């Protein structure tokens, strides 16, 4: 074991290594912008190798945890004043080790992929610096031993995400999207901070297990009512709700897809959005004794899963579709947490991290290929109506995409099957209603994923079809025009044609397969997408034995042969069969509608017009928020904002203070502001005496 100890002592290097990379490249960018920007490859290699080193270290830690090394925690008193103490440090336990491996592998592969994807982007080096900074913050979050430190890194990953969504600030909507993400996350973080302070006040600790223990004790001996404890927990839960894009704070995630695709894969599919699930897992000792909170978490998760899936059916933008699918899958994880299936939720987190990262990278590869044909216009390059038949041109991408699709649909033996099945099984034991919704969602998932697959990779290639292109542009303009109102000018017709003419000369007619630096990560991610599920089979659940709630004891695993003998096959077949069954139904529907064109989707859409519109318009959530919050806030702000200045100005003008003025110096005096201020001072004195005298 002598070899192992130093690894633990230097475990802090895992987040620090990427940070060093980000710091060095960042400093270079700021001080010697020109030089650093030209050193593209060296910077990239430097950062990627640092991340690789962190990955190796993570794997070492992980293996030592698997072999039964006890939990290693190192803390030091970071700041203390009186009885206000903050401790910082790091803790390596099973959960942390697992998350380290997930984050570092995905980050590493995404970084390799980025080299190909961003090859022509002027912000190449800056992008790597951000990526590295993000990885560092995320790794720091994962190994945090207490809630406060989590909060610090929580904000950091939020900031990175904010920076990265707005990376292509040139694009329409990128700036708006990052603002939206920011504000939505503020709401959640505010709740989190409030809940954190409240829990600290009640329990006097930021440590997870201590918190849970004391809170339970407090509720038991009656010094804190269960209602108050529930409020605290719900406040905490607001944080994960925003970060993991759960209803009603989910609105930012689809818009966040304005960022470059590697970001979508790393941050908005695999790691950061999973931070919410991770936090719930960490806070499990607090949540598990509060049944109301658990139920709330389960319902929020379930509803999000269903809503995400139902919206994903009608999306035409490939990344938006995947985004809603991510939201839906995160809902599954939340559902698992809510019904107490701790291991299942995290298992799904792991499998999802791999296959969803892969799906996103595939979509990036597709977009990369499409840009050859339709130009660098996200509106065209990301729209599935222009794709089709890409399997011929991009064999590796399509194969890996198919693997990911099968995984997410829950077809055995792909990874998603095992995790999703476990979640559904655990849900059934708690609430059949939740199970039914989850089960239905699984069907919808299969349908929209195959819809996506077929319209992207099968059939005819439609990328050169000018008609669709023009139609798409017109649609977008109409959407914009509608918000502009009827009085707006309409010069778009002109530009449309002009651009179409212009676009013809230098684009290729067919897309091409992406370079090896992009396909290699795809293939690398396909392996876990297929195989990783096998560690969590219901017969011999290695995963469950490794990851379980702190309060729970798990009996020793049986060898395979015995496990097979003792396993209750009937129940498993019933549950698994039903979920595979609905998945297959979804797939066949998709085949009928999009591959063989036996059923016309448009006809169905027309028949259930209201439902179709509901899905297409994302349940009108954005519109509702716009009407209720944005407009409301704006109105309120406008009134309050002007209070200080306007009232003074207003009264001054009202009373006609502005006399004729000539002398520059006297001008400002004679408008009466100064007198008015003095009057306010005296009035305030009077008021304060009266008020404080009376009370």
């Amino acid at each position: 074991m002598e070899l192992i100890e130093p690894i633990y002592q230097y475990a802090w290097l895992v987040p620090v290594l990427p940070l060093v990379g980000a710091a060095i490249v960042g400093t270079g960018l700021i001080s010697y912008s020109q030089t650093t920007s030209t050193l593209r490859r060296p910077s990239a290699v430097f950062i990627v190798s640092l991340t690789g080193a962190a990955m190796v270290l993570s794997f070492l830690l992980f293996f030592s945890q698997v072999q039964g090394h006890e939990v290693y925690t190192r803390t030091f008193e970071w700041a203390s004043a009186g009885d206000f103490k903050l401790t910082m440090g790091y803790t390596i336990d099973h959960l942390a080790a697992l998350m380290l491996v997930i984050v570092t592998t995905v980050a590493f592969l995404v970084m390799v992929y980025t080299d190909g994807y961003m090859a022509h982007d002027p912000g190449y080096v800056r992008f790597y610096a951000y990526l590295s900074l993000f990885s560092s913050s995320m790794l720091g979050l994962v190994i945090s031993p207490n809630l406060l430190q989590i909060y610090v890194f929580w904000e950091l990953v939020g900031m990175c995400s904010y920076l990265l969504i707005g990376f292509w600030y040139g694009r329409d909507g990128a700036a708006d999207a990052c603002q939206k993400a920011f504000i939505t996350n503020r709401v959640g973080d505010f709740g989190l901070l409030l809940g954190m302070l409240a829990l600290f006040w009640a329990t006097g600790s930021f440590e997870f297990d201590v918190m849970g223990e004391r809170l339970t004790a407090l509720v038991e001996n009656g010094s804190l009512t269960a209602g108050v404890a529930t409020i605290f927990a719900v406040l905490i839960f607001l944080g994960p709700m925003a970060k993991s894009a759960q209803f009603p704070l989910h609105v930012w995630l689809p818009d966040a897809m304005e960022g470059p695709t590697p970001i979508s894969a790393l941050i908005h599919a695999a790691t950061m959005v999973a931070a919410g699930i991770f936090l719930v897992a960490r806070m499990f000792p607090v949540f598990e004794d509060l049944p109301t909170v658990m139920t709330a978490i389960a319902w929020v998760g379930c509803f999000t899963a269903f809503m995400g899936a139902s919206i994903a059916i009608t999306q035409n933008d490939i990344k938006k579709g995947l985004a809603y699918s991510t939201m839906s899958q995160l809902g599954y994880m939340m559902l698992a947490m809510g019904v107490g299936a701790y291991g299942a939720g995290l298992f799904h987190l792991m499998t999802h991290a791999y296959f969803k990262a892969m799906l996103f990278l595939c979509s990036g590869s597709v977009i990369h290929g499409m840009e050859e044909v339709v130009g660098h216009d996200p509106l065209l390059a990301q729209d599935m109506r222009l794709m089709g038949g890409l399997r011929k041109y991009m064999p590796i991408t399509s194969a890996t995409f198919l693997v990911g699709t099968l995984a997410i649909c829950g077809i055995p033996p792909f990874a998603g099957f095992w995790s999703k099945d476990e979640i559904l099984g655990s849900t059934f034991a708690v609430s059949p209603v939740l199970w039914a919704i989850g089960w239905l969602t699984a069907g919808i998932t299969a349908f929209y994923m195959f819809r996506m697959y077929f319209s992207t990779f099968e059939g005819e290639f439609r990328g050169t079809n000018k008609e669709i292109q023009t139609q798409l542009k017109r649609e977008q303009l109409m959407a914009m025009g509608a918000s502009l109102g009827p009085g707006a000018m309409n010069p778009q017709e002109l530009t449309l044609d002009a651009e179409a003419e212009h676009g013809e000369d230098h684009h290729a007619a067919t897309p091409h397969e992406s370079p090896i630096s992009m396909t290699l990560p795809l293939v690398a991610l396909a392996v876990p997408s297929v195989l990783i599920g096998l560690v969590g089979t219901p017969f011999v659940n290695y995963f469950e034995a490794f990851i379980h709630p702190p309060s729970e004891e798990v009996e020793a695993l049986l060898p395979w042969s015995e496990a097979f003998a003792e396993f209750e096959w009937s129940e498993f077949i019933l549950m698994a069969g039903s979920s595979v069954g609905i998945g297959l139904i979804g797939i066949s529907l998709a085949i009928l509608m999009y591959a063989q064109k036996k059923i016309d989707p448009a006809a169905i859409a027309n028949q259930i017009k209201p439902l179709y519109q509901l899905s297409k318009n994302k349940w009108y959530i954005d519109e509702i928020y716009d009407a209720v919050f944005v407009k409301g806030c704006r109105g309120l702000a406008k009134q309050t904002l002007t209070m200080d200045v306007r009232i003074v100005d207003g009264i001054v003008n009202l009373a006609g203070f502005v006399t004729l003025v000539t002398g520059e110096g006297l001008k400002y005096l004679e408008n009466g502001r100064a007198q008015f201020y003095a009057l306010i001072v005296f009035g305030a004195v009077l008021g304060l005496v009266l008020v404080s005298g009376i009370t």
Partner: protein
Amino acid sequence: MDFTNLASQLNAGIILPEGIVVATLLVVLVGDLIAGRASTRWTPYATMAGLSLAIVALIYQWDTATPLSFLGSFMGDDLSIVFRGIIVLSAIATVPMSIRYIEQSGTSLAEFLVIMMTATLGGMFLSGANDLVTIFVALETLSISSYLLTGYMKRDPRSNEAALKYLLIGAASSAIFLYGMSLLYGLSGGKMKLLEISQSFVAADSDAPIGIIVALVFVIAGIAFKIAAVPFHQWTPDVYEGSPTPVVAFLSVGSKTAGFALAIRLLVAVFPVVSEQWHFVFTALAILSMVLGNVVALAQTSMKRLLAYSSIAQAGFLMIGLVVGTEAGYSSMIFYLLIYLFMNLGGFTCVILFSLRTGTDQISEYSGLYQKDPLLTLCLSICLLSLGGIPPLAGFFGKLYIFWAGWQAGAYGLVLVGLVTSVISIYYYIRVVKMMVVKEPQEMSDAISNYPEVRWDLPGLRPLQVSLILAVVATSLAGILSNPLFTLANNSVSHTPLLQAAIDQQQAPKAVVPPVATIAPAVTSVAQR
């Protein structure tokens, strides 16, 4: 009373730091008279050296055995040392900002430095003043120098306007303050020393008579003017916008710190009889400041006005610590002041640098700055984010400590208001950051597209750069390595007999034991079972 006897009674060594500042002031003034315009080369550095020497002297006086000096006029306890230190530090930081600024505006530098040192001196004496006369003279030294600094750019009508407004409102509030002090003198039967006054109040033992309340509110009006608390804040935006920016930087930190020092000493020492009332008044001021400051800041288009409202709001946060009145409350307030010093001065340095290069301070003109000057963008972003309280920057820990102290003491309402408004505040800080970073090249403002080549070799820019980097490093590291600052803040409170007495007194009658203390034994017993 012979001379040596008197000299030993005076214990004049306590005001050694102030003595050093006076000596520096004289050196600069006389040196400038002799050397003429050539003196600009060394006066700022002499000023910084003198002020740094004063800091060293302050450090040596930490935990002095005999803090009382000048027959009770001045109290050099640890509390005053921390406040004096902050004021001197803010003055040191202001000097490098002003060199280039003053040069470009074509006014003379030495006088500027002299007046600023006088203001510093006033603030320092105010932090330790222990009788009514010293308080008033120190306050006026600070105020009058501030008026002069505000109007220093006399060719700029906005500077004139600002000075005139500041002077008029300041004179009004000083008059109110003085009236309050005269009431204190009369009510206590002719006492001058703070503790004697409060003793005579306690001896009279009347249950919060109206006289004391009137005196209290009048005194608070003077203090609230200095710390720019709503509704005594009206001057702030106008003055901040019109004055030379280095002056604003000093006003927002140095002058405000002096106000808080005065508030703690005067209220805690003199008004224990009406402590309920003054806590009530400050709660009202704190809530008003946080809400109005943060909300109105949203609407600002000028960076300086934005920072003005932000400083009003920050004063509101600071007042939470004062209202809470526990040991943690006071130390959280001092800790936040220390951090506020770095982040606010860093922010102002950036604003000055930007206005030196572009000649504007409109927020919209900041758009796209990232492409032209990444360093400035980074520094300003860090300072603003820290002001907004984004972890892991220093501001977050300051806010956390204050809110924690408030929550611990049961001031839930205040803490909630603080949390909500700090969320609002993040929005307007971020708006500036977004404006600088996330803007496409064609959306660049005029000022940015004509942005001059970044040069640091112009006279006066090098010190500016150094101080900027120092402030930013302090802002980013003070959060991560905050323990020394925590210890400093805590010690300054726990080593000050005045505050200890007040804390004991406050806790004795209330006897509200925080839930942690009551449940901790229960929890351990549960855990043992």
